[in-house]
């Protein structure tokens, strides 16, 4: 998986940062009653649902297994996490300008939009190892 440094979202409007700010562009901002809003039906925004720790038997077993595999002697810094965690990022400094960086998300967004164009499909499996879910983003109103 490649690590794609996000462009500064303020200037050129990089595409790689779009996934993380999508929710802002689509869900926030000024809404005026006298205007209609473009229908968002058909847009599939892939949410990485593993990020939400849900209390379920499956989750319990998964975490128990993860603990069993964990090297208890190693410090948290020694083992910075799974190499293929979606969106694992290293941001080197923030000198004046912010550099949001993403990895998997950059691919995910393109998947999401491809899917939005496809419209027929309701599910897709990104290459990421983590389980992901396609969630339909319906129009809010």
């Amino acid at each position, binding site marked *: 998986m490649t690590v794609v440094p996000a462009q500064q*979202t303020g200037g050129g*409007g990089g595409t790689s940062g779009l996934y993380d*700010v999508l929710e*802002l562009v689509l869900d926030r901002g*000024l809404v005026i*009653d006298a205007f209609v809003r473009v229908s968002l039906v058909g847009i599939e925004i892939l949410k*990485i649902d593993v990020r939400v720790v849900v209390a379920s038997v499956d*989750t*319990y077993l998964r975490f128990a297994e993860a603990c069993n595999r964990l090297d208890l002697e190693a410090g948290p810094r020694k083992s910075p996490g799974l190499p293929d965690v979606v969106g694992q990022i290293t941001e080197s400094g923030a000198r004046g300008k912010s550099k949001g960086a993403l990895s998997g998300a950059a691919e995910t967004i393109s998947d999401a939009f491809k899917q939005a164009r496809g419209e027929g499909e309701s599910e897709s499996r990104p290459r990421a190892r983590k389980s992901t879910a396609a969630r339909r983003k319906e129009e809010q109103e």
Partner: protein
Amino acid sequence: MSTYVYGITASSHPKPPKDMTGVGDPPRPLRILEEGELAALVSDAPEGLRPKRRDLLAHQNVLAETGAAGCVLPMRFGSVAPDDTTVTGVLAEHADHYKERLLALDGKTEYNVKAIHQEEAVLHRVMSENPEIRALTEANRAADGGSHEQRLRLGEMVVAAVKAREAEDAVEVRRALEPNAAAVSVGPDSTGWLANVSFLVDRDTADVFLAAAEEVRKGHPHLELRLHGPLPPYSFVEPGAAEPAGTTGAFGTVVEMGAPPSERS
């Protein structure tokens, strides 16, 4: 021909470059509609506009580039008015409110921070803090993974500990950054992040905010922090008089800090 609206600004706002374009294929030229002291950044609305990557980016680009020259209130993506007259009519009707918001947001920009846990790192942390979990893990490991019940019990304890850590970290991230922000807007919880918070930051002191974010990152190696900005102040346009009551709750709450009290119309 209907009119796509990008944002609202002051009529004194520097005019964008003549060749700037917005949504559509081919991209429609950006136009300015003036009404008194206010102006709307608009273009013709293309037929069959959909939330496609190109158009989302076009919307974002217009706001980012015009916003760099002065305060612009960003519209939510996909706002289409029946015609130009409707747009200027809305500007006239809610002029005081928009002027107040433009003043409140002048010189400020939005930074969005999202945080998640790095699983292995947070498990280490949870274990180092909780002898019971550690003991149970070691017992299970000695018993070749342990019985189904033992695994469930361990997993349940770990999940509870991780969730508690998520909640604590969410508070810590926000507390560490909010002293450097003029306002904070907490995004919906359900989007899969342990923290999803937007900060309204003075452009002049953005360095201080970014340095604080870097400190949080260093101090929480088990956290993955995603920082985006400067962004148009999407989360701080505040529901105006034109927005029906009740629609604000879905998008989180805005807490004004140190900003002058807004005069709501």
